[in-house]
């Protein structure tokens, strides 16, 4: 059973359509890159998936249920939407304790994830004094709190130094190898090419391509993920998926 399913998802803000009839499915045990130019609708899709915004039509589900209907959501899905979701006056440890408390996640797990993301020594410091990379690591720690089977990460490498990016790649691969579903949005195409198994590419809110990265690059005759991305999202590119777009499995 797929962990994430997006079915004919549409979101309009007045006359602007941010996401249009978008459909795709993700399977466990794989890392899927979520690609698209700025304003393509990636962050909106992630917010719809996480119940932070309501779709105009269609649905996005985790194990068959919309996020808002999940019981104990932190143990099902871990999400990183933005590094700046912590009160600057609270310590990293307190910020995670606050996030953990509604799910009754014990303090021991808070310490574990702080160590896992390399913030054990800085956990007592205020989040407002953290660098962007440290805030990103704290947000990643929050996503990992419930030891979830699915991870949704919006630009997780933003602000990380090269060592941090390398560490993140290893972490995500390890999580996928444990059978978890990892869904990563990023603009760092060269880095993503070394990390992901599958790709979902959108533009103007619509699905452009979805499938295993090797298959997509091979069919398009692209030498790299970057050239595939640029060709598929150029203004001259033909619409790859005229509406209505059907859901497709990536595994």
């Amino acid at each position, binding site marked *: 059973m797929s962990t994430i399913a997006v079915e004919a998802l549409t979101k309009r803000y007045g006359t602007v359509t941010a996401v249009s009839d978008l459909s795709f499915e993700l399977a466990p045990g794989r890392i899927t890159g979520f690609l698209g130019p700025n304003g393509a609708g990636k962050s909106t899709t992630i917010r719809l998936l996480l119940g932070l915004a309501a779709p105009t039509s269609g649905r996005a589900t985790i194990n068959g249920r919309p996020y808002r209907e*999940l019981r104990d959501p932190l143990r099902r899905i871990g999400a990183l939407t*933005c590094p700046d979701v912590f009160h600057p006056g609270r310590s990293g440890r*307190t910020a995670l304790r606050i996030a953990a*408390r*509604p799910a009754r996640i014990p303090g021991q797990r808070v310490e574990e994830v702080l160590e896992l993301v390399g913030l054990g020594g800085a956990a007592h410091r205020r989040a407002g004094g953290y660098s962007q990379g440290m805030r990103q690591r704290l947000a990643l720690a929050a996503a990992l709190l419930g030891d979830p089977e699915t991870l949704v990460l919006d630009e997780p490498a933003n602000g990380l130094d090269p060592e941090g990016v390398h560490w993140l790649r290893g972490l995500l691969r390890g999580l996928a190898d444990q059978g978890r579903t990892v869904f990563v949005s990023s603009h760092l195409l060269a880095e993503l090419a070394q990390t992901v198994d599958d790709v979902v590419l959108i533009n103007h809110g619509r699905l452009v391509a979805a499938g295993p990265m090797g298959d997509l690059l091979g069919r398009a005759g692209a030498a790299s993920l970057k050239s595939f991305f640029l060709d598929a999202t150029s203004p001259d590119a033909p619409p790859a998926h005229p509406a209505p777009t059907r859901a497709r499995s990536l595994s």
Partner: protein
Amino acid sequence: MRSLVSAELLKLRSTRSAWIPLAAALALAVVAVLASTTAAGPDATPHLSPATLPGLLRGSGGQFVDGAVLLCWIVLSAGEFRHRTAVTTFLAEPNRLRVVSAKLIAAALTGAAVGLLAEALSAATSAAALSAHHVPLAWSQPGVLGAVTAVPLLAALFGMLGAGLGLLLRHTAAALGLALMWVFVIEGIIPALTHEPGIIRWLPEAAANAVLHGASPAATTLSAGAALAVLAGYAAVLAGAGAALTVRREIGTTTG
């Protein structure tokens, strides 16, 4: 629900700008009693007598605590959107009505606890001050129990008013500005604007004063019970509107 309320109280304990006003209000509760009693004596004006005690208990803790609890919960609830901590809050508990309920319960608990503490401090300070002036302490007189009950109840309602206003406006400065404007300007001019002088008694600040200081002889204020009910109505309306908008509105994550 207990874990959600506990998370809200942890947010309060870990937010300096929220608990410092509460600490200041408790300090002022002591200072106000000292200020009232230092200049007075059995033969001076104001005259100190056993009947002074209820007034000291109502007046000293009440107003400072109400304002501090209101400020505290505006900062906490509107601050969720200012600092985008609402994202982690609603990811952990996507049932927004449960989150809003937890905030209101935590706000009421905060008010009640700080109100009781303020009364305890006022009572201890009053006892010391009155004893120093050789004024007998009459704890069983009418008015003492009323003061000790009214101050925490009122503070609990002001906590809910603050939480509701913060959720409704989602903007800390706007919510604080509106609260201050209401107390110092708006409530005062409403009777003139409406040409209804009697309307004042139904407004929040006047109702709070009626609870703290009792009905005036000219009957321009409500009775304490009616005033509490009016304030409960305002708290319910603000909390309900805040809850309705919180359930409906989107939670922003990025500016891009």
